[in-house]
């Protein structure tokens, strides 16, 4: 229950307050969101498998988001930013798909 409420509160907060990100950070927001989605689905799958621990989730969420943004930032500095962000999206996308498929199997037995 807490996770869902937290997510909804976060979305509402973002929509109401409309915080503006510093211009320098804006290119890294989409990749951070993809990393956050990956951490969320991973956590949900772990929860369904009965191995969820909030400490691991918090650490993996924050490190995922930061590392994904950092990789793309480093890529931007050395001139391969768009290629690296494609790579990050591909890897995280595969993981998200695998996790969602596992979640679907557990929830709907299909």
């Amino acid at each position, binding site marked *: 229950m807490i*996770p869902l409420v937290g997510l909804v509160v976060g979305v509402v907060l973002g929509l109401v307050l409309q915080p503006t990100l510093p211009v320098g950070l804006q290119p890294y927001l989409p990749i951070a969101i993809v990393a956050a989605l990956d951490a969320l689905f991973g956590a949900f799958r772990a929860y369904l498998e009965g191995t969820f621990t909030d400490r691991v989730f918090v650490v993996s969420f924050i490190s995922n988001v930061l590392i994904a943004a950092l990789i793309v930032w480093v890529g931007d500095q050395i001139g391969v930013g768009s290629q690296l962000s494609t790579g990050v999206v591909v890897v995280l996308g595969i993981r998200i798909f695998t996790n969602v498929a596992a979640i679907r199997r557990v929830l709907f037995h299909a």
Partner: protein
Amino acid sequence: MSTTPTVPPRRVDASMDLLNQILHQPVDPDYARVAADLAPEDRRRPRAHWWLALVLVLAGTLFAVGALQTNRTRPVQETERAELVERIGAAETQQDALRRQVEDLDGQIDRLRSAALGTDASSRALEAQIDRLGPAVGLASVTGPGVVIVVDDAPATDGDARDQVLDLDLQVLANGLWASGAEAVAINGHRLSALTAIRGAGDAITVDYRSLTRPYRVEAIGDPRTLQARLAESAAGAWWNDLAQNRDMTYQTSDASRLVLDSDPGITLRYARTVDR
């Protein structure tokens, strides 16, 4: 039963370890490790700390900010695009005005030249030579009968470049017209000279570095009785018949009783010498 430790055979996909890891380890392995350390009763009901809620609020905010940001930048991009289109249009009108100015100045040069040459016999011979060569090199505008050829991509092109008119096709057609006795050729109003480049640039074909829009209208001034027939017999005619029949491209040839082809504004004086009088 052998007790000697056997080395496990190397997996066939050992070189694709990274992909395997992504596919088979999508959940952070720490979940399993920490859960194994916990007591079974703890595992049944995972405790939720306040930081979990905080991180989830953060995640939600992240999504909202991301969506807002994308929506906010869209109108900006559209106005930027509109501005760019406007600037291109303005630059094109300016270019046209400059070209007209060039033509005016060319006319002035012509008048000044004939005034400077005077009226003696050798000058008249020079003027006659200029008048004769001017139309051929594209320096003077030409009026007369000829043929109009309209070519276009095949109607249903599913992105296949072979169904589209290429720069090569227009080059072949222009060369075929020259070879069939055309005196002046223009594509979409751009007069061709010996120095005109017909090239593909991205999706468009350019003539004298000005991009063309479809359909392509090729006008050629020449003897109307022979030009069309000679073109049909030439290699260019065979080339285009093939394109029209096998690729379904448009290739329409028609006679025109009067065509006006402007001079090529790209022609400049490159070589000159004084005449010994």
